[in-house]
């Protein structure tokens, strides 16, 4: 029986993977072929989706992008033997340069396994980290994470080990409080930054690695309950995670007696409801508690006073998913990747107008230019690249002069940018940067939680001021006013929403001033 793989990842599905799988299943039946369909995760080579793979003794052979109507010809031309005679054949998957030149640690299984198969997960080194963690003292687990140098992958890059140590050392006895005695692990899966999809790809392609990471975190800090705060914009991830949790409970990887150890960890999913601000950890905690997602002032830190007032680890999906490898291989093995104080690997996400968009997991230190051209292949439109937004909607727009900066937390910060969650959105030369600056303010207007006046009101005024600049009304005064407004938002907002919305605005003004001087096209977009 030959395995044929068709991904069930959102991007593959969005390009017709289900129709491809249906057609393939029908043809296999009609032709009485000895083959079975496996719905895997995506390899993250999105320009090739739907990517069909076939097992051969030498490894998997890839075909893509496949449409249902390609299936008969592919089968006629011996796809099941791994034949390369069809023009859609991409050769051995692992030899595709885009994939071959990556350093996949966190994403080592994604696209290879059936995401819901626990047997598959185990056969690919799954649960080794958890098994080791169950033999360690809590503080030894934290030691290992500290040794790895792992920093939060959500954007703030706070050392994960230090956060865990704080929660481990925190006293959870809160007399009179309903959750006294409990600590929590909260996974921030509200991946709202445009240009980022690594959390989604991982949750859909390898959900057990996140579950394993959360259980280990629970053992490390003494928490018996975890929540995945998942955005409602990810219905496919929701389906897959829900099923994975059910299966993990049935097999003893979650629940009251983890692998017979007598230890307990319960895991629940909570769905957001389309509010970008809930990706900010304190707003997320309020939302998790069933409230409006309002940003909280810090201190107190969530590590002391987090979910339901109890000590809480809040980590991003990728942070928690890095933990099983760290426990299985040792913290030092992980720290051997990377540069400076940015240790390990970062899943970069190539998005927007690129010929080869997708996921690229690499050690820190690769340049933006290499990601854009060596991996991304330049623009899909064929026009020159002009601006690149790194780190989500609150990140700066960088012009070509900055593309040789190494992707490392400190080096990017020095260049006025940020790694953030590793999202990279590329624009060709048809982009109007004044409209992009306007959108940054517009987005802040729509998504501000409203707690801080500079953010709530400033974003409204920001759109108006940029409109006046574009319309050439009192240009000099309005430019000065916009800079002043950016300063007020930056200094007067509690969180990054108001505090960093000035980044894309100022960078657009600084690097692309001509766009603010030309007459408006009247295209206001979203």
């Amino acid at each position, binding site marked *: 029986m030959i395995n044929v793989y068709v991904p069930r990842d*959102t991007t593959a599905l*969005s*390009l017709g993977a289900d129709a491809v799988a249906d057609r393939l299943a029908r043809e296999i039946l009609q032709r009485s072929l000895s083959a079975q369909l496996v719905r895997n995760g995506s390899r993250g080579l999105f320009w090739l989706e739907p990517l069909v793979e076939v097992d051969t003794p030498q490894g998997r052979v890839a075909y893509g992008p496949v449409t249902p109507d390609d299936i008969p010809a592919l089968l006629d031309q011996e796809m099941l033997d791994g034949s390369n005679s069809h023009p859609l054949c991409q050769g051995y998957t692992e030899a595709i340069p885009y994939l071959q030149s990556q350093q996949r640690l966190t994403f080592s299984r994604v696209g290879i396994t059936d995401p819901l198969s626990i047997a598959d997960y185990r056969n690919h080194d799954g649960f080794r980290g958890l098994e080791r963690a169950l033999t360690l003292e809590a503080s030894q687990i934290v030691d290992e994470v500290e040794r790895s140098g792992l920093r939060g992958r959500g954007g703030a890059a706070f050392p994960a080990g230090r956060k865990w140590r704080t929660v481990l050392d925190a006293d959870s006895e809160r007399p009179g409080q309903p959750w006294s005695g409990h600590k929590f692990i909260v996974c921030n899966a509200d991946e*709202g930054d445009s240009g980022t999809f690594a959390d989604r790809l991982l949750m859909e392609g390898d959900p057990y690695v996140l579950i394993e990471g959360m259980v280990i975190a629970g053992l490390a800090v003494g928490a018996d309950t975890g929540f995945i705060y998942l955005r409602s*914009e*990810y219905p496919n991830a929701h389906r897959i995670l829900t099923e994975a949790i059910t299966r993990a409970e049935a097999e003893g990887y979650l629940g009251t007696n983890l692998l017979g150890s007598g230890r307990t960890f319960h895991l*629940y999913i909570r769905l957001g*409801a389309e509010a970008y601000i809930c990706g900010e950890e304190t707003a997320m905690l309020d939302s998790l508690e*069933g409230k409006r997602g309002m940003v909280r002032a810090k201190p107190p830190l969530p590590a002391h006073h987090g979910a339901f007032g109890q000590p809480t680890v809040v980590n991003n999906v990728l942070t928690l998913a890095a933990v099983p490898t760290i426990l299985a291989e040792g913290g030092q093995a992980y720290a051997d990747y990377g540069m400076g104080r940015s240790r390990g690997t970062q899943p970069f996400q190539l998005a*927007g107008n690129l010929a080869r968009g997708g996921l690229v997991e690499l050690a820190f230190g690769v340049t933006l230019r290499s990601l854009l051209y060596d991996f991304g292949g330049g623009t899909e439109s064929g026009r020159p690249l002009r601006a690149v937004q790194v780190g989500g909607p609150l990140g700066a727009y960088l012009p070509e002069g900055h593309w040789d900066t190494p992707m490392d937390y400190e080096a990017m910060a020095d260049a006025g940018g940020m790694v953030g969650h590793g999202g990279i959105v590329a624009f060709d030369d048809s982009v109007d940067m004044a409209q992009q600056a306007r959108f940054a303010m517009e987005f802040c207007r729509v998504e501000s939680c409203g707690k801080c006046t500079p953010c709530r009101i400033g974003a409204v005024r920001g759109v108006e001021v940029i409109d006046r600049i574009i319309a050439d009304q009192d240009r000099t005064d309005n430019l000065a006013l916009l800079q002043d407004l950016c300063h007020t938002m930056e200094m007067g907002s509690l969180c990054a929403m108001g505090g960093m919305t000035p980044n894309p605005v100022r960078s657009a003004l600084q690097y692309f001033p001509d766009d603010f001087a030309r007459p408006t096209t009247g295209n206001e977009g979203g």
Partner: protein
Amino acid sequence: MQEPNINDQDDRMTQLIEQHQHLPGALLPLLHAVQQTFGYIPHTTVPAIAEALALSRAEVHGVISFYHGFRSQPCGRHLLQVCCAEACQARGSRELVEHTRQKLGVDFHQTTADGEITLEPVYCLGNCATGPSVRIGDQILGRVDPAAMDRLLDDLTRVPLRFQSQPMTPETSDTKRGAQ
């Protein structure tokens, strides 16, 4: 969309409240369940929700109105969300939005006169390398250029008359469409 029958609604609400009220942070899961059931969150359900969770009606209303994902009014037979975030902008979503508005004759947050389609923006569906992206029900579509949008809208609105005569929630209508 018709107002749910008031007695049916009360019975369903009692069930939903029983299923959800003991969850930690029960309000969001309950509101999702209510919206899943009725297609929106009828204002008549707010007092029962507030009472069950020991909240004020104002607090419940405050939560419903805070989140873009909760609706206090019924939407059209299909909820069409078009991604308006940067990665899709870089791939032509501004043009797609303009085209869709003109084609449907509605702006964002509005429903077509025939009650078929409600148009909403969404800020990122995590499909950022193959945009422009749209969401219909729980289905996400990529590489939606204006021509693909025209085909999608034709598909969505081409429904046999016997389906149109029945009141239904967006969820069930999508299921039926998929089963054709």
